[in-house]
């Protein structure tokens, strides 16, 4: 099942499938080595539509909710 990372549960992992949005956003994400095939773990999300914290290759990143909704991962549920 393919879902945006905002829908991952805290601590849940998924394999990154695609990144939507404009070229500059996609480039920004991929230059951080967050690319299709990578395992993404959602660390947590802040309440009231706050930002999402994800972990890729042991590095944590805080991203706004809007951006996080454009990053899709595959999960086995």
């Amino acid at each position, binding site marked *: 099942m393919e879902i945006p990372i905002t829908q991952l549960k805290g601590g849940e992992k998924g394999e990154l499938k695609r990144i939507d949005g404009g070229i500059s956003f996609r480039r920004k994400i991929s*230059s951080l080595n967050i690319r299709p095939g990578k395992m993404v773990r959602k*660390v947590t999300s*802040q*309440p009231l539509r706050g930002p999402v*914290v994800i972990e890729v*290759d042991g590095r944590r990143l805080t991203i*706004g909710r809007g951006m996080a909704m454009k990053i899709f991962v595959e999960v086995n549920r």
Partner: protein
Amino acid sequence: MGNQNVGKSAMFFRLTGINVTVSNYPGTTVEFKEGRLNLGDETAEIIDVPGTYTIEPTSKAEEVAAKMLKEGDIVINVVDATNLERNLYLTLQLLERNVPVIVALNLWDEAHHKGIDINLRELEKELGVPVVPTVAVTGEGIKTLVSRIKEAKAHKKRHNEKERWARIGRIIKNSESIKHRKETLLERIEDTTVKPLTGVPIAIFVAFLMFYMIRIIGEGLITNVFDPIFEAYKPLVISLGNAIGPGTLHYILIGNMIGGQIDYVQSMGLLTTGLYVPIAMVLPYIFAFYLILGVLEDSGYLPRLATLIDTVMHRLGMHGLSIIPMLLGIGCNVPGALSTRILETKRQRFIAATLMAIAIPCMAQIAMIIGLVGRHGIAGLGIVFGVLFLVWLFLGLILNRIMKGGSPEIFMEIPPYRIPYWGSLLKKLWMRMKGFVAHAVPYVLLGVILINMLYFSGLITLAGKVTAPLVVNVLGLPEDAVGALIMGFLRKDVATGMLLPLGLSLKQLIIASVVLAMYFPCIATFVVLFRELGLRDMAKSTGIMIIMALFVGGLLNILL
């Protein structure tokens, strides 16, 4: 050049010996810095470029980085050894630019602790340029790096994005091996401090602990170190005073005798108040604040705080990273105003700068407020800082409503926790203290002279008469308080001290402290804000400050 948080500024500092502040949060270098490096008989100009992940710019800092690249003859590419795969992306891009590159494989010690083993020979062969392992904070490997700069090489094979990642995959496979090992305690608490349920209570505890420690250290230094020094210094001043005899010189150097005695806060002489206020009342708190702030910065806690507070900051028209100008502003509004540069949009920078300048008193002023209002107990202090916090909150909500546009979303890497390295922590503390003494003491002395001249010439009395409708009727302060308000343009700490001889009631002290904090930035902050915001926005910002100060002061006068 290199990614964010890989130690570029520390490396720059090691290479040039210039004073650069290194902190464990993104965006320390928003504007580039220049320095010189001695290479035997030649000197080379070195530029500290902002952190970037790609030379196809995706943000303002990266734009600066891309521009700087065009001007460089050689690139020292600082690479995070603990995160080779991602860092090599920039390295490959640099190699394609036909500019000579040398790679500094930094955080070498951390990689070792993490069980990461990198085959240097193999990596050098793969990249075709020199690779030198370094630990920038301690200086390890820097000599080798400098001696090998001549070997920097250029290539020019072009790749597209896919090819680059494929090549990185091969390089990693051939040169890196990772041993599995147990998680350290620091790694285990990483998640706990960003999860809202645990992170928010921890953040509140950290904030509380921070201010408690500042107070304990500050007060401890005053009672145990600085007050005894100034007591010992008193006979010297008295005998000097006797030697000069009464007159203008005595008035300027020693000041008024209060009840036949020298009173360090009230006398207003150059050698009494002019030295005592900045050194014995303010400096101890500055020291305490920057010590604690340094630990917070270097440990990597601040990006976590920025994450937790992001939601709140969005309601105020900013985002989580705006916590940085606010925190730096507590030390001194000048670096606070400068650090608004890390925010992306003009709107965000305007709101952050205005809120900081109006509602965040600097540590010098806080120290004086504690000294003055704190004499009457903790309740008065609570009102002063509570009111300022409410001003910050409501003004932010209002500005967010009435200003066009929205705030961009936060996008920030959270660096791993690091145990602060004492050498660089103390160096940073020393630089900040030096900065304070160099800037504050002359201003304080100048202010003391100026205020004496204004009193002498009767201009203060005149100003008191002219502003009486506002100062007396609206704010409920005596006419003489205008002297403190004038001084406040120069130094708010001395200005707050000038309230003492006026014999104000607690209510008046509270109003005067709040108004002094809000009504206008001190001259040093004003200059920086003017440069950062431009004439129009600066005029708007100061207009808001004056109106809000009168409004809040007047309201307090009615309510208290």
